[in-house]
């Protein structure tokens, strides 16, 4: 009990099923669908915890359980020591929540929106202005503009300001960077870094793997489960295989060719190249090297083949986990 109270969030065997989900991506739409299928994890106070996974992985459901908006079917979740079911009132006072969908009043101005959310939490804009100064500073020239007329990045900054105005202890951000431009994305992550310094625990979800390295710890989520939960570097270190990046003239056929190649464990498209994994060479002659792979592909008739050994990224780890 003592220990779980010292954590910002502690989740034990949390599960949530939905009776029927329309248009399930895999076509198995009938029957109960587990949105969250038995997750356990902890988030330390003052860290940035990233939940990374594709659309439909169950991230939003997990966030809604943690913000007391949904009841779990089984298991328990605690936020700052409060139970999400029993003590939902307490949790609602101390967390900030920014849903994935833009959820402010589009027909009200920037300033009015912020004022409403400040009042909602019994505070004022002036009282906690220092918290949002960095973010809201960008918006201040447009404070008389209606929220609906803002750009995507501006909307997210306003939503973040509204979620922050009451100085929450834990901040839940559901896909804050989805649908905004790369510059705004970068700015948003810089802001999260500054908020962390103010002692706010941040739980953030994202479908973008490249944002993983900006978190203190990440969880890779797929079909309601955490495939892995650790520091980004620890996840990369545990990759345990050699990784090669392969390019060629005919990328489509090359993918099939690579799957045939000797010693290749897995192969997937990765941006403008293919990534393949192979066992680490323990000095044995059968181990795959960049040169041996290139030679083999050229023997098979592929032209313009380039093979380079690369360092794995979080996305490689995720793809590797998925292929199991």
């Amino acid at each position, binding site marked *: 009990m003592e220990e779980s109270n010292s954590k910002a969030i502690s989740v034990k065997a949390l599960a949530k099923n939905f009776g029927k989900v329309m248009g399930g991506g895999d076509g198995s739409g009938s029957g109960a669908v587990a949105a969250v299928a038995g997750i356990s994890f902890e988030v330390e106070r003052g860290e940035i915890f990233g939940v990374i996974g594709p659309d439909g992985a169950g991230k939003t459901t997990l966030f*809604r359980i943690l*913000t*007391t*908006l*949904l*009841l779990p079917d089984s298991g328990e979740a605690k936020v700052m020591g409060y139970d999400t079911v029993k003590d*939902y*009132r307490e949790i*609602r*006072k101390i*967390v900030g*929540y*920014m*849903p994935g*969908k*833009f*959820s*402010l*009043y*589009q*027909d*009200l101005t920037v300033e*009015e929106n912020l*004022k*409403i*959310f400040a*009042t*909602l*939490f*019994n505070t004022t804009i002036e009282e906690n202005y220092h918290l949002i100064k960095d973010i809201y500073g960008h918006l201040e020239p447009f404070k008389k503009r209606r929220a609906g007329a803002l750009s995507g990045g501006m909307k997210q900054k306003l939503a973040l300001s*509204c*979620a922050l105005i009451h100085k929450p202890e834990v901040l839940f951000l559901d896909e804050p960077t989805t649908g905004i431009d790369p510059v705004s994305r970068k700015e948003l992550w810089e802001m999260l870094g500054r908020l962390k310094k103010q002692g706010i625990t941040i739980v953030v979800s994202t479908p973008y793997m490249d944002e993983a390295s900006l978190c203190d710890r990440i969880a890779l989520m797929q079909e309601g489960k955490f495939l892995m939960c650790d520091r980004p570097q620890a996840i990369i270190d545990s990759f345990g295989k050699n990784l090669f990046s392969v390019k060629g003239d005919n990328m489509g056929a090359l993918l099939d060719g690579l799957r045939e190649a000797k010693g290749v464990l897995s192969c997937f498209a990765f941006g403008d190249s293919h990534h393949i994994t192979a066992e680490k060479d323990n000095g044995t002659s059968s181990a795959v090297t960049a040169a041996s792979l290139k030679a083999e592909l050229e023997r098979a008739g592929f032209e313009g083949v380039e093979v380079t050994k690369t360092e794995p990224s979080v996305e490689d780890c995720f793809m590797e986990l998925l292929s199991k």
Partner: protein
Amino acid sequence: MRSFRIFVQKEFFHIMRDRWTTLILLVLPILMIILFGFGITTEIRNTKFAVYDPSGDYTTRGIVNKLESSEYFTLERYIDSEDEIERLFRRGETGFAIVFGDNRILLIADGTDPNTASVLTNYATALINSYLQESAVRQVGGGAATDVAGDPPVASATAAAHRTITPEIRLLYNPSLKSAYNIVPGIMGMILMLICAMMTSVSIAREKELGTMEVLLVSPMKPFLIILSKIVPYFTISVINYITILLLSVFVLKVPIAGSLILLSGLSLLFIFVSLLLGILISSVVDKQITALLISGMMLMMPAVFLSGLMFPIESMPEVLQWLSHILPVKWFIIAVRSVMVKGLGISSILQEVSILIGMGIIILIISIKKFKYRLE
């Protein structure tokens, strides 16, 4: 309390910044009163009629004159044969014809619109009867003047006067048979229902649909207060509309308030509360604005129009529908408003309606509280 105040303010902003909402909320009652009060009316005026009168004698011309001098009929023309009537009807030149025959008067009306046809024949019959009665009385008067000549004319005149026993009709509460008397309570019920139930349910559903409810729930503000703050603006607008409707009906439609204004206002406040609760109940079961709109439109407004006795008398409906009409708060409200506003009755006469409305309010309140969601599901 500060957050409650700002939420009420926010709700007013939502309404006022959407020009169409504002327009609908404030202009709709005026438009409806004017449309129903003047345009769509069950009264019939200046219907063109044709006459086939082969005899052309004093009495028949007297009857035609009597009809024409009334505000209900205008003589289109005399025709030369009975066959012509159908041609006139088909071409739509007239919808009513009178054929004078031997010892009979045939009234022909266009039955495609049965309501109009029956009203026309009723009017015409009443006018013809009153003409015959008047002429009989005139004969008595004329007879008295020439009384010296002897008994027979007097005897025949009194006999004529006795022969035709015509019932005299007097309409209580609405002596001039103005349809506005019937329409004002109905419109009041519809407007208040529309604004309270429909607008409240749509505005709560909007918060759910746009995802703002999600953010509001994750805050210390009690969900109950969020809902309450949504009610206040619509309550205010309903009161404004109530006053508008009353002013329009008294000064424009000339429907006086026969009973106590305080009682009428109290009754309306009660109905506003019941409708607001109904709006909350609807919003607690729907997540989309369009669903809220359809439910309040199809399940409240349509039955309110058809079953509340606003357009068709409830008594002439199939029994199942009559029974269904009992569960509509608006029906009881309209009955009570008619009693107070048109008949001028006091509280003791509308106790039944008032207690039914209160009972409905309590039931809806209990269901809404039970159905109320502190979470998303």
